[in-house]
């Protein structure tokens, strides 16, 4: 920076003004804070971080990104990380980060209590919540077409849904990847059968959205008839007063864990670890209900909020096998792009 400035100073007048303007800009400096990229939307992340500040006195500076953007930025900055913690987002995003070597192993006190699928064996990430997929449909649309809320994957193939479904795009969204692996799972991991189903579903899909929750509002507004979303997004849409139905397929549907991780080379590692300790413990996960965040807590000691428990009652939900998904993810997504998205 100094070399540029001394260069600039010697330059013609108008250009010198440029140097002065740059030099006058304040530098980045922080004390007793932790910096984070949040994949959770701001309206959930902000209250959590405010509670954390209340509990520990540590302020969290954060910017919100979709999972793909957050990962791209963390990787681009890996030689000099700008944040300490990557907060929220599906485990598979974290798996991709491990491949790029961006995380630092850390095992918080809750580590031993968490079920195996909620923690990385070496502590590269730990889960802070669980998030099942659901079908969400617009009630007015259902009524106009004399439909019941879909109760099977095959119900979505009904021609009444032609061009009226929105769901996430597997090129950007972890939600979509979880959905595709759910379809593989209910088809007994028979890839050809699963892809035959997805191709059959294609004419009913109006739009594959960039973010996982991108279709919730169109469904709420009736621009789309329905879609497949994470339960947090679906129940949030309902809580905002949109007339939507949430249902589950009888064949079962997948769920994805949401995680947190410390970045390698973090500038405030101690504060970052405290945030991880707090987020992976009941201290944070007990707050979900208070702020109407409909994640399923990952920590076994946290009670499921009664109304959320009522929604989930009787639903058949299975975890996505991390090893199987990790090994086949890229190939399956490529096949989805080639055969389903752009046939």
């Amino acid at each position, binding site marked *: 920076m100094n070399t540029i400035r001394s260069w600039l100073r010697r330059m013609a007048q108008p250009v010198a003004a440029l140097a002065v303007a740059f030099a006058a800009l304040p530098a980045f400096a922080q004390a007793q804070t932790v910096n984070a990229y949040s994949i959770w939307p701001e309206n959930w992340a902000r209250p959590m971080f405010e509670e954390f500040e209340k509990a520990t006195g540590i302020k969290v500076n954060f910017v919100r990104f979709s999972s*793909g953007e957050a990962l791209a930025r963390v990787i681009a900055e890996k030689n000099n990380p*700008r944040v300490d913690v990557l907060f929220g987002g599906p485990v598979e995003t974290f798996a991709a980060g491990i491949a790029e070597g961006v995380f630092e192993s850390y095992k918080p006190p809750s580590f031993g209590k968490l079920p195996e699928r909620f923690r990385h064996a070496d502590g590269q990430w730990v889960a802070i919540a669980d998030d099942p997929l659901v079908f969400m449909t617009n009630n007015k649309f259902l009524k106009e077409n004399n439909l019941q809320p879909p109760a099977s994957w095959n119900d979505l193939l009904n021609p009444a849904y032609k061009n009226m479904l929105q769901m996430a795009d597997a090129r950007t969204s972890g939600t979509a990847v979880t959905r595709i692996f759910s379809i593989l799972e209910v088809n007994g991991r028979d890839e050809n059968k699963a892809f035959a189903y997805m191709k059959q579903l294609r004419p009913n899909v109006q739009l594959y959205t960039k973010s996982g929750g991108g279709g919730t509002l169109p469904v709420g*507004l009736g621009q789309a008839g329905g879609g497949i979303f994470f339960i947090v997004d679906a129940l949030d849409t309902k809580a905002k007063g949109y007339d939507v139905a949430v249902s589950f397929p009888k064949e079962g549907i997948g769920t994805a864990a949401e995680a947190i991780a410390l970045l390698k080379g973090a500038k405030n590692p101690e504060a970052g670890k405290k945030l991880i300790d707090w987020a992976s413990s009941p201290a944070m996960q007990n707050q979900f209900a208070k702020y109407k965040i409909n994640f399923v807590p990952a920590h076994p000691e946290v009670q499921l909020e009664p109304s959320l428990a009522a929604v989930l009652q009787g639903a058949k939900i299975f975890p996505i096998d991390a090893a199987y998904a990790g090994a086949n993810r890229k190939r399956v997504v490529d096949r989805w792009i080639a055969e389903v*998205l752009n046939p």
Partner: protein
Amino acid sequence: MSVPPPAAVAAAGVSERLRADPGLALAVAALWLLLGLFVLYPLVMLLGRVFIDNGQFTLQGLAAVLTDRHQLQAFWNSLLLGGLVGLVGTVLGFAFAFTATRCNLPRWIVGLIDIAVLLPLVSPPFTTAIGYIFSFGPRGLITYGVLGIKGVTVYGMTSTLTAESLTYFPIAYLTLRPMLAAIDSNIEGMALSLGASRWRVFRTVTLPLLKPALANAFLLGFVESLADFGNPIVLAGNYEVLSTKIFFAVAGAQHDPGRAAALAMVLLALTLAAFWLQQRWLGRRSYVTVSGKGDGGIHANLPRPLWLGCFSFAALWIVFTLACYAIILTGGFVKDIGRGDLTPHLGHFASGFAVEWRDGAPAFVGSAWDSFFTTVEVAAVAAPLTAIVGLLSAYVITRHRFVGRRAFEFLTMVSFAIPGTVIGVSYIVAFNVAPLELTGGMAILVICFVFRNMPVGVRSGIAALAQIDRTLDEASSTLRASTVRTLSKVILPLLRPAIVATLVFSFTHAMTAVSAVIFLATAKYNLATVYIIGRVEAGEYPLAIAYSSVLIVFMLAVLLAVQKLVGESRLGRRAATELPTGL
């Protein structure tokens, strides 16, 4: 900087001047350095990812992209979309520029046209696209509400073309309007008095003189469309273009930065080709219309039918635009427009922009203030810098010969052609570690905007300078004025319209851009657009709309202020005879 003497005799004189004029030589050196640092260096870092694999030079990355059917399809889609946007944008921009300058309309109507045309330019990203879906989507106000059509398909090429044309034609308008205004009315008047028909004058005099401006308008529209990300991501659906492809490769679940870089190269090549074609088409002719001789400045009256046509077109447009924006902006003032709850409600503004009095001073407690102030600050610093760097580049390109002038000119265009996402990532890669550790601060946001928006300054500067007779600055330097003096006393006053255009464009672009800075914004330096997108994602449309309307009103106010401050170019017009008496 040593400059080998060019062969041509005339050029030798210029090069001598370069040596004799240290101010000019320093300016050229400084511009080279800045371009090298903030355009070339990140680009080289980026291209390294395409051609170098494990320390070995390879063409595989590029070949993989060029042979893939889907990537090629995106290439043709981008080309077609960009060409159409350039064409439609130029035609629309010309129609409005013509109406505004040649119809002898009252000033307040011209002011209204200005505002209606500039609205899309000052709207935060996605406003057009989201407005389009709300109007023409499956449950749109027009398609479903008025026409009652069920299940329309809104996502695709046509929607994207419409939204992009609406978003970018103001740039064509900004480029064409000052050029149309500056055409010496004597030239057209002479042709008319020689008995040529109006159409013939238009075809053989006006249009040819506008060639540089038309070419620039088309080029800017074309390039803007190529790099545009906001509209296709919302509206294009399955119509894949390069910019969205690149975004998916960078930030997608596949995460393939190498492919993104290769695609960015393809995009760059497209821009280069367009740039080269433009140069070929313009050739080496003279487009000078502003010389030392004054003119009457009053253009001949248009025939009645043409005048009526222009006027009603403009009037309809104003009504249409204002109505559209009224519908969109109502959302900020009612409880929930999405669900049709139209009870008047100011709560959305309160949550974003509340101000309280605490200890006798205003406290900005609303959640939007932080990002609003940062954005204004960044845009306000970036806009004049963009104008300085851009117009100075335009000046040295058109008026001086120096080694590598073509390369220099091309370099000024490059950052425009690369999608913001790629720029954002390449800036992080280039400026994240010492000695150039800039990320995380505000400076990198400013720098990013300056070099990203600079092409508009360069293009409008070049177009404007092409109109100004060289003898004007030669006269100045014969009188022993230095380059700096010639610039400030002769060229700058004549460049006022180009300065306004650049300031307007760079300020609004800095306030509304998103794709490049989404990777450069931080918690401390968050930007309005990033905040708005957060609100949209959270489904808080009313707050997003309220914020957008604050931004639109603010930017319009600034634009009008800039226009007042910098003013129109003060061409020496001879007093017209029909001036009202008693001035």
